[in-house]
């Protein structure tokens, strides 16, 4: 106990000392001092004191030093100053000079900036020994970087190199490190370096550490150690290495399992968002809308346009005319919020296109589903070509807002934010659809018309208007799907085509006209797709097997998971 507290206080004191010395001399000053020193051994010594400091300026200055861009300038007063020449040369060949020790512009006696000619100045010398010392500083530079990601990267590189010389630096860092993730990496890197240790006891201890950490990145190095120990027949090391490998393997199984479930749910959510609109137009209304995929594309292109309105604007070549949409040149959080505006915009644009489609074509084809299939296929071809003519045949660039690109890593399982978002989004949409269908008067009318169109008409419901709004609602949901898909996949003229088959399958498997069935089947198909991919490591085969599975499933339940019971015959 006493020893521990003494150790603690020692660490504290040394930490304090360290910060005091930092206050005393900035890296800039240290480098300037080294540059002014005449003796090359002294230079090395001064440079080495920079080890463990994480200031970015160290790298810049050292690189310039090595590139002969640092000069010793003697001022009028006879004072020697180390300067860095920067900016382009002007006609006289002069460049502006910056003092290395404080980063300020070099000024003459009258206080106006001095411009120097590189050739007239004496470049700061460097020899091999000095360059090596600089490299040692730079290698460990990122270890003290204020950015935790950079620190992790540096620690990983050091661990993978297994260079025992770097061990003290890692241990020193471990003492002051606050971030738990970096600490973990430090522990792993130290253990990896210890694997090279000649003592078996150290090796076994390192393997025990690695077993506890069960990090995937150490797998290959442990394997190498195991092989080495096997040839040297060192039983304790072999068993420790095997333990560590087994721990990593079981951890991998765990991560894969939950990763698959997570990806399955998010794939299912994508399918669900795309299929929900179809569940309404096909399931409730009985209209085979082959142009449903194009409604998705309408949503995606709307997102693209909204994004450009927030950004630099866009010019659309609309049938020979060019339609310029000015941009707001928004930046930062305001630009990133474009997606929040794109979501309702996609819904309403797709809903409007859907309503136009219903008024123009589909209203004549109720009760003739095969004809509605044909006519909407024609519309689908037509719209795809219109997309091609307006937005080009190639994919357009839709950037994700920063709050959708990133991930959480919980115990090595990666949760991408956009996948988490899609799950939340799907729940939100399903819940919203449920509310619209059950709690609004439009929903009541919709259900009445879909159950018995003639009876509803007799009761005075304007069925054609309800049809129009229902179709618009279904198409709007497709537009929402498009807004979302634009974030995770390419936005191009055939975006919708790649989803239409799966959407129909989802609705059919779920049981036509049943929203709960659509939810179940979407999540089920998404999970099946991801697990088969995980097992076969082959996405195409996974898709094929899912389709075959669906065909076989329909043998068992021809009407889908949830059967809508009815006594009608034809």
């Amino acid at each position, binding site marked *: 106990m006493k020893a521990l507290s003494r150790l603690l206080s020692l660490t504290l004191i040394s930490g304090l000392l360290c910060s005091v010395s930092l206050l005393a001399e900035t890296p800039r000053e240290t480098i300037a001092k080294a540059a002014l020193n005449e003796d090359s051994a002294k230079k090395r010594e001064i440079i080495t004191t920079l080890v463990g400091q994480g200031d970015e300026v160290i790298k810049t200055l050292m690189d310039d030093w090595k590139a002969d861009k640092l000069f010793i300038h003697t001022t009028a007063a006879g004072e020697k100053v180390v300067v860095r020449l920067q900016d382009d040369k002007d006609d006289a060949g002069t460049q502006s000079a910056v003092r290395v020790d404080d980063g300020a512009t070099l000024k003459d006696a009258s206080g106006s900036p001095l411009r120097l000619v590189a050739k007239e100045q004496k470049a700061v010398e460097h020899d091999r020994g000095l360059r090596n010392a600089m490299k040692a500083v730079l290698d460990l530079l990122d270890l003290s970087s204020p950015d935790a990601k950079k620190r992790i990267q540096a620690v990983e590189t050091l661990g993978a190199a297994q260079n025992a010389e770097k061990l003290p630096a890692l241990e020193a860092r471990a003492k002051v490190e606050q971030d738990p993730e970096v600490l973990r990496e430090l522990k792993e890197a130290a253990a990896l370096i210890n694997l090279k240790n000649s003592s078996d006891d150290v090796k076994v201890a390192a393997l025990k550490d690695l077993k506890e950490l069960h990090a995937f990145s150490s797998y290959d190095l442990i394997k190498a150690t195991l092989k080495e120990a096997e040839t040297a027949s060192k039983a304790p090391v072999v068993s420790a290495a095997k333990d560590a490998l087994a721990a990593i393997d079981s951890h991998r199984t765990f991560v894969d399992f939950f990763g698959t479930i997570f990806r399955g749910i998010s794939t299912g959510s994508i399918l669900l968002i795309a299929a929900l609109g179809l569940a309404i137009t096909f399931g409730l209304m009985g209209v085979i809308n082959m142009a449903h995929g194009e409604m998705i594309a309408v949503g995606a292109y709307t997102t693209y346009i909204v994004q450009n309105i927030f950004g630099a604007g866009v010019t659309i070549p609309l049938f020979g005319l060019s339609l310029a949409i000015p941009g707001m040149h928004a930046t930062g959080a305001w630009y990133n919020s474009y997606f929040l505006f794109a979501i309702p915009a996609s819904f309403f644009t797709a809903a409007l296109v859907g309503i136009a489609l219903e008024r123009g074509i589909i209203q004549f084809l109720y009760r*003739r589903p095969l004809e509605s299939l044909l006519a909407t296929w024609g519309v689908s071809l037509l719209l795809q070509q219109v997309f091609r003519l307006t937005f080009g045949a190639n994919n357009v660039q839709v950037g994700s807002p920063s709050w959708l690109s990133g991930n959480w890593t919980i115990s090595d399982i990666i949760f991408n934010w956009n996948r988490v978002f899609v799950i939340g989004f799907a729940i939100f949409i399903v819940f919203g659809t449920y509310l619209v269908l059950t709690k609004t008067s439009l929903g009541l009318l919709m259900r009445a018309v879909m159950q018995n169109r003639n009876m509803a008409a007799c009761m005075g419901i304007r069925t054609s208007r309800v049809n129009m709004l229902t179709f618009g609602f279904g198409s709007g949901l497709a537009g929402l799907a498009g807004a979302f898909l634009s974030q995770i996949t390419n936005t191009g003229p055939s975006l919708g085509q790649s989803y239409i088959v799966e959407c129909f399958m989802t609705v059919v498997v779920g049981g036509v006209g049943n929203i709960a069935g659509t939810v179940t089947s979407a999540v089920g198909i998404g999970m099946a797709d991801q697990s088969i991919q995980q097992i076969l490591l082959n996405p195409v085969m996974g898709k094929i097997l899912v389709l075959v599975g669906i065909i076989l499933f329909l043998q068992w339940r021809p009407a889908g998971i949830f059967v809508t019971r009815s006594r009608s015959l034809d």
Partner: protein
Amino acid sequence: MSMSLVGNNFFNKRRTIEFAAVGIIGVLMVVVLPLLNSLNLMSNFWLGVIGKYLCYAILAISVDMLWGYMGLLSLGQALFFSLGGYMLGMYLMRMIGGETMPTFLNMQGYTDWPWFFGPFTSFPFAMLMVLIVPGIVALVFGFLAFRSRIKGVYFSILTQALTYAAALQFFRNDMLMGGNNGFTDFKFILGHDIRSADTQRILYIITGVVLIGIYGMCRWLNGTKFGLVQRAIRDSENRVLFSGYAAAHYKLFIFVLSAVVAAIGGALYVAQVQIINPAEMQVDKSLDAVVWVAVGGRGTLLGPIIGAISVNALKSWATNVFPDAWLIILGGLFVLVVLFMPKGIVGLPAQLMGVWKRYQAKRPAADETPVSLPETSTTESSASSPAK
């Protein structure tokens, strides 16, 4: 009774007109055009293009046998068409000869032909496979589909999924069927240079004769009692079931038959176009064939032929003159035909006659457009089944 019904129908005026039309077109296609070609009055290119149209016409007839006469809209006919093509393609690949394996096998590490290519050195075997492989696929799928009484739009969606899955599979290189590029660079068929004008002319004539033969066979089948039951199933399957017919057997037979017909068309197509790849078996190709039937007039046998030839001729013209607008023209055509010409080109004279008669009957108040003709087939009514 049914026989007399058939007999009375057989020599009516419409039928005579149709036979005359088919006869004239047949002679023109099979005799006059090849003759012009051999006299150098018609280019090889154009004969090849028309040969391609004739293959498409065979595909269209297979769609119509299912859709027009049975009420089953199959979106998988392009699959059977290309399966037939692939089977002949396997023979043609073996006939290329030479020491080296084709690239798609080399890339998979094969130094010898895989086992299933083995018997394809025999032309009769390949011909048999053209009929059998698509037939078996159709038999298995049809058995599963009709057993669980999948019909109407569900049948369409499932055949679409089947085609989609097959195309994905054929796009894969380890399927060993040429992957993305498919089969091409053919050299010999039955010892003749497949690229020579003479061979191509003979293949053209065979295509024409086969098309007329298939037309004749379907015409005959529709005239029999089988054909009557087939149409009865289209109009009301339940009544046919209640009358004691096993509707599923009829459906399965026609489904397999039309798959085989489509496959024959595909084999002839590959022999003339000399390339087959998975792009031919995608869902939109199936839907193209459906367009031809709809435009020509479904439920007739002449309609699909006229539709396939005219839509493809329109396509050849439009993709040259307005390459950007072709899909818009096709899509628009589709919508217009469905809305305003439910009986297609073949039904147009009767439709115009009807409009004319109505105009004559009530002279001033003739502003009613024939948007929704009440007598258009109501094959499917699952849409009206009440939702929960």
